[in-house]
């Protein structure tokens, strides 16, 4: 998959949320850990539904977690 234009702060938010592991976030968002790894590395753009789930896992808005790079 091509490198996504959507940047994210998932790694930063994971550490700010008590060193949340990728597996913990995956469980909260209802996806596999592989998918969290791919999203975090910017190699997969999540659907809007998944983006909202991830943002909610951190108690943030989607805009805070994801940003589109022009």
């Amino acid at each position, binding site marked *: *998959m091509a490198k996504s234009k959507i940047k994210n702060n998932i790694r930063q938010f994971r550490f700010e949320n008590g060193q949340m592991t990728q597996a913990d976030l*995956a469980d909260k968002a209802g996806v*596999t850990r592989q998918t969290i790894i791919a999203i975090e590395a910017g190699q997969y753009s999540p659907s809007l539904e998944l983006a909202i789930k991830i943002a909610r896992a951190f108690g943030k808005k989607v805009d805070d977690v994801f940003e589109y790079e022009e």
Partner: protein
Amino acid sequence: MNRSQKIAWLFVITISLAVVSSLAAFAILYIKVGIPKAFAGFALLGIVGFAGFGQMIFPKDKGKIICDERDTFINRQAAIAGFATAFLVVGLACMLPFFILGPQATIAVWWLPNIFGAAGLASFFVHSVVILVLYGRSNKNE
């Protein structure tokens, strides 16, 4: 590596092995006994059948979630690529004789199941390669 990747690797290995060994067998038989008997070498394509055991060999992935939107996306892309490849193989198999032999020529009916088999093999191979490529590119940090 998840179950899909393991099964895809099994397909890539068995199909590659089957094609290489059957072509080698065909070449050897061609030199020794000549053309129609040399086609018996393609019986080694049966090795591909072992790939069918992949579903039994590899246990289901552990964890609550074993398939999500990314897995679905990758499988869909692989299926499209596999189908496109099968279409291409059948298309080429139909068009090449037309251009090589001419519009009035005839071909034996036994080519038809072979074309079907070749399209299936190519489809499975490309399907598996696409799965490995799409997962592989995004799993380097695991």
